[in-house]
């Protein structure tokens, strides 16, 4: 189990690097698909089986497909050959390393000692009860947000007729 986790973690870091560094956007999207699938795997290892399946269903089966769509529809052949990283990369790198280091340091301060991992339990039922019980209000709010997103997406992607 542990070994699998470290392999997954290494692959996750690699594919995350792929997302931000690969030249071809399509390739980085594929790298992102891989990263998301790996995150789903980590979820399952952490006992969140329902969440892992949802991650694949929503992220990979939904969001990434649309992402690939847009990439396919909006590629100018010339742009794929240009530099993909802007001029502020050095500063950005310093900043993100600082943030990463800070996060690691902070985590180390509070969570470095060993927590016992409890056994894995199926979670679908309890998540269902949680969402429709105590979390009902955020749940409804999210459905409203989704509706708004739906309407907004239709509005934005419409061809403008009046022009």
């Amino acid at each position, binding site marked *: 189990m542990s070994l699998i986790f470290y392999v997954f973690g290494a692959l996750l870091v690699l594919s995350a690097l792929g997302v931000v560094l690969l030249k071809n956007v*399509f390739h980085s999207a*594929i790298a992102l698909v891989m990263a998301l*699938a790996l995150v789903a795997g980590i979820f399952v290892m952490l006992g969140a089986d329902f969440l892992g*399946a949802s991650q694949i*269903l929503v992220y990979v*089966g939904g969001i990434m*497909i649309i992402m690939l769509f847009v990439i*396919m529809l909006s590629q100018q052949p010339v742009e794929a050959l240009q530099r993909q990283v802007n001029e502020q990369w050095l500063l950005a790198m310093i900043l993100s390393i600082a943030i990463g280091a800070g996060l690691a340091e902070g985590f180390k301060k509070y969570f470095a000692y060993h927590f016992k991992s409890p056994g894995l339990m*199926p979670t*679908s039922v309890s998540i269902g009860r949680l969402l429709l019980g105590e979390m009902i209000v955020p749940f409804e709010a999210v459905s409203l947000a989704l509706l708004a997103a739906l309407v907004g997406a239709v509005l934005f992607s419409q061809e403008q007729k009046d022009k």
Partner: protein
Amino acid sequence: MFFKEDIVPQGADRWIHWLAPVAACAPAFICFAPVPFGRDIVPVDLDTGVLFILAISGLSVIGILMGGWGSGNKYSMLGGVRAAAQLVSYEIPRVLSVVPILMLYGTQNLRLITMAQQARWFNFFPKWFVFYPVIGQISFLIFLICSVAETNRTPFDIPEAESELVAGFHTEFSGLKFAFFFLAEYAYVFLASAMAAALFFGGGDGLWVRGGIIPSWLWFLAKTSVLVFVFLWFRWTYPRLRVDRLMQFCWKFLLPWSFINIALTGAWVLVH
């Protein structure tokens, strides 16, 4: 097919072109993990079985998009986009058509779902989900139609219509790679039939033949084969749909009806 030359087009994105058939094919086989082939013959007894299958089978779309992109060919790409659009759209009513089953039996575990269907109505009539009045039939029809569309088969095969589009996204694939795409397609036909058998037809539950003379796995395979036959039957019978009709049918007919069906099931569950 194994020995045919593997041709990679000049403008192709080599890596993607190479990965596409794998990405299309692999999920199809992973999906068989939680399928209960018989009474106690379940490769992996997953608690989130149904969701797992639905999620993983969605991964194949990535393979198709990769195929369309990797060929470095505008027409392949359009074919890929079309196919993906169709698959993503039909995925939604398909998932929703399974929801009533989950509501009724209160589990996503395929084995438990088949177990729950082994009861009899009036000690006689099999209590399979498909025989539940109204909800069972609506669910099954939507599931069947969406599964046909999901596997890109006639009458929903406009994205890869051989005679009209020169095979869409897999135009540029030959030899073993092409074989992999087809393998994926037929694996999905088999998977959809197996799922339908497990979800709607009681899995390995036998019909009035007591004492286990016929083993449950044989029942399961028989049901699956009949459903596979239905799939082929569709192909022989119906002409193709136009692409805009196809999308309209999904969004304006299947989707509302699957919502209505969920509401009906809710009422049914409340009453019982």
